[in-house]
């Protein structure tokens, strides 16, 4: 299967309103996705929600590509109840760069963005509650980064909080 161009009203709408911020619109395995410049992400979510009916933010996650610039890719999965269509939006985020928070557009983004921060260390500007969510708050390191080993842990935290030398 190859990636083919994604044509139709949605990519047209994105291009017409966001112009050069839309870097790619493609289909892979019949699943449409658009790659955007990071500052256009929240405007795109708002545009798709108010004008194309994409009223359900299914998921936000990230992928770490240590060799790429920018290093991380944020992935937003959207669904429209009216159209019964699912699309993905993606944007690159550099190490240390802050992504704009989608909470003003979709309330459900709150915990999803906290998890992305927790696991990848990507911060969201304007997030109402920027804390870790699954890991302990004082934990050092971001587990889902590729340079974080599978048996690695925050020894200092384990020793201080669990009273053991090491969890391994």
């Amino acid at each position: 299967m190859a990636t083919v161009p994604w044509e139709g009203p949605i990519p047209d709408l994105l291009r017409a309103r966001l112009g050069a911020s839309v870097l790619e619109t493609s289909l892979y395995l019949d699943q449409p996705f658009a790659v955007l410049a990071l500052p256009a992400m929240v405007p795109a979510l708002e545009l798709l929600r108010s004008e194309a009916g994409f009223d359900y933010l299914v998921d936000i996650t990230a992928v770490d590509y240590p060799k790429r610039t920018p290093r991380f890719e944020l992935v937003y999965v959207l669904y429209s109840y009216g159209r019964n269509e699912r699309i993905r939006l993606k944007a690159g985020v550099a190490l240390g760069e802050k992504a704009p928070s989608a909470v003003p557009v979709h309330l459900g983004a709150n915990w999803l963005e906290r998890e992305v921060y927790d696991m990848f260390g990507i911060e969201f500007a304007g997030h109402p509650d920027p804390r870790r969510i699954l890991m302990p708050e004082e934990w050092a390191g971001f587990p889902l980064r590729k340079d974080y080993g599978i048996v690695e842990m925050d020894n200092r935290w384990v020793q201080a909080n669990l009273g053991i030398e090491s969890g391994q």
Partner: protein
Amino acid sequence: MTALDSNEMVLNMGPQHPSTHGVLRIVLKLDGERVTSTDCIIGYLHRGVEKIAENRTYVQFAPYVDRMDYLAAVSNGLGYCLAVEKLMNAVATPRAQAVRVILTELNRIASHLLWLGTHALDIGAITPLFYTLREREAVLKIFENYCGARLTTHAFRIGGLQYELYDGFEKEVESFCGQFLAKVDEYEELLSGNRIWRERLRGVGVIDAETCKRYGVTGPVLRAAGVAWDLRKAQPYSGYEQYEFDVPTRTSGDTLDRYFVRLDEMRQSVRIIQQAVANIPTGPIMAKIAKVVKPPVGEAYVSIEAPKGELGYYIVSDGTTHPYRLRVRPPSFVNLQALGHMAQGALVADVVAIIGTIDIVLGEVDR
């Protein structure tokens, strides 16, 4: 959490409180008996499932997904297999698809039964738990006979099924379905007409359709708010389009309506199972896929209607035998986020009912 008002107090609920169904901790801010704010502390059961996935092959990782929503391990397995098959551009054989539907729907019944029993227990009705566990046992027996495991079944394989059906499978499933509908009526007799049950749940933890959508809430919680949305209907997978069934809905979006929706869903599952088991296609149980699972470079998001809502898998493949990135979109995690909205202004005793009615499994919330 902001500073306290002079007449406010903070109450810690969990992580060992029995009504939190696992290790959920909620910090409640109270004004008298009324909840003014909630803060969910989760992660006590975090095992780093997504990290583990990157360090296992696709085949090795399959049993791990059972340990997320361990009450619906079959659903987890189905979603995972479908996602990997999508990446490989493979489809399970018709026979495998029919068996997958039967087992997944049986699992939905088992999951709803455990929910019903424990939810009723939380509210103070002890009896239903014994009955629901009795029926759940029959389902678990079928799983045990099929694959040897009762809870973490690992029933499916990428491309189809691991095992051929055992002799008498159809008969056992049919006899379960035959007597189960009457049992659901029995639960209704115990609870639906019970005045204490109704008064305790009516108008508690209300969430409307619009708010559900803004939070991304799916599953029975969404349907009890009046949205007839079920992925089995909206975007059928594994051959669900062949079966006749309804999507039960209610309108008021409160705890009582969610109870009715789940009861009706069990009845609909029976309908699906009866149609599927009467007509299991013959043929191989495994599609022709490569011995070494090695999806081409690319990514896909595949989701199914798990008992708790939309369960999605987003997998990025770099063309090797290990997933480059595997993300699980758990329904419980997303649905739990709406607890703050549902519990706003509620009584402390109602928070117990609201946690129960969302139907979370912490293994899936924390992963």
